[in-house]
């Protein structure tokens, strides 16, 4: 009755088809406005123009995308690392949590776009200021979600582990860490898209390579078709990263699928 293939097909019809149709309608309307309305290309390029821009500049965009992605990955790596260790230390020593937690929260009101130029002044035009900005952006959601995950552990479970003679490290490894994975991945999904946007923003400010630099150049030459193309490319990159995070989550939390299926019943 309900084979996996059938289920997949139904999934496509239910979830992917409706927004797909909407998107198609928007593209058709957009193309019609451009072809019939006599809108100048530098103000609103048609979907066809954007496709053309992709064709023409594909190699160049790919080169810049590689730079942006590299910055994103390095920034994510160090952002997760610092977020993780901060969360662990805040969880272990409540005095540290009391000292820095409110400050971390308040620091989030500082607009990252405003720090980016400062970072360029301090750290130059190379990759470093971009990576630092991503670390600053990613650090917060990761640290907070992990800390909440560690703290939401069931007290009785911890008592049970203690009655078995488990050490602090063992309790962390067998209870706290797996308990916080769900929250960690939820915030990682937000973080990856933040990271891409931060990389692009800091490339606007200064630099010679990356999608942000490419964007600044095409904007200055009023090549709106290329502008649209690069915006779409950035969105697609973020989507791919979010999807990769999802795949990683599935692989590292095999119990999650079953628990979710049970709660649906």
């Amino acid at each position: 009755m309900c084979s996996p293939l059938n289920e997949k097909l139904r999934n496509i019809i239910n979830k992917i088809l409706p927004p797909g149709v909407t998107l198609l309608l928007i593209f058709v309307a957009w193309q019609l406005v451009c072809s019939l309305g006599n809108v100048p290309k530098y103000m609103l390029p048609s979907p066809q123009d954007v496709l053309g821009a992709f064709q023409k500049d594909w190699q160049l965009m790919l080169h810049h995308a590689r730079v942006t992605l590299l910055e994103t990955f390095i920034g994510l790596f160090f952002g997760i690392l610092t977020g993780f260790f901060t969360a662990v230390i805040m969880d272990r020593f409540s005095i540290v949590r009391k000292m820095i937690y409110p400050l971390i929260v308040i620091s989030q009101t500082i607009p990252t776009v405003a720090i980016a130029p400062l970072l360029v002044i301090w750290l130059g035009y190379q990759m470093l200021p971009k990576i630092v900005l991503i670390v600053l952006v990613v650090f917060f959601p990761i640290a907070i979600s992990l800390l909440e995950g560690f703290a939401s552990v069931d007290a009785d479970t911890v008592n049970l582990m203690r009655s078995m003679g488990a050490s602090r490290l063992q309790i962390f490894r067998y209870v706290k860490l797996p308990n916080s994975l769900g929250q960690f991945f939820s915030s990682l999904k937000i973080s990856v898209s933040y990271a891409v946007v931060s990389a692009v923003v800091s490339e606007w400010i200064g630099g010679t390579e990356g999608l942000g630099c490419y964007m600044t150049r095409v904007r200055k030459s009023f090549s709106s078709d290329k502008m649209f193309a690069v915006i779409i490319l950035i969105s697609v990159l973020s989507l791919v990263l979010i999807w990769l995070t999802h795949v990683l989550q599935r692989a590292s939390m095999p119990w999650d699928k079953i628990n979710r299926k049970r709660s649906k019943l």
Partner: protein
Amino acid sequence: MAALEVKNVTFSYDNLTNVLENVSLTLHEGELVCLLGVSGGGKTTLFNVISGLNRPQQGSVLLNGRDVTGQSGKISYMLQKDMLLPYRTIEDNVALPMIIKGMKKKEARKIAGEHFAQFGIDGTQKKYPAELSGGMRQRAALLRTYMFSAEVALLDEPFSALDTLTKSEMHRWYLDVMDKIKLSTIFITHDIDEAILLSDRIYLLGGKPGTITDEIVIREPKPRRSDFNLSQEFLAYKREIISKI
């Protein structure tokens, strides 16, 4: 020698009001002793002291004659809820106490695996706790308790969360398993029928601060006959307990 001896234990959380006062009890090897009392009477606190999670202000806990007062990791303890970790398969949950003691995962799994059939949960090894019924989860939790230590187990209302039918099925299963593995057990309950049905002796814990007020020996031989809980003797025990509580 007694498997477990609790001697004159007095305990308070704040050094002002005692929760337990001068509690003494003995558990012989292979015996199943029940601790019966009203909720909030200090039963669970007593278990926390025996298991070493809390250190008593006075008194001592002896395991096979050795003083283990305030030392956790010596006596197995099963709490009210099954407390299986949702992110570990049943076999990894059951093997966890041995892994904590430093055993290799593979070896711990193998040792745990030998007992699945005996506990009536064969075939659940690779499943996650969410896929099992409440009764099955409780069996797995008991096996984990047993894997931790085959000497003495403390069970804190292990069947209280189950529905009546599952509960009586679990009682039968429990007596059957206990008959095979001869685990010395102290069992908390507030269900008088359950206490009479399962145990060799019953301690009544009452008063404020909590102390042992009485001891009742159930002389019905084990394994218990299937209609024991409908017999005159059963009712007589029940009447005696109600009059003493």
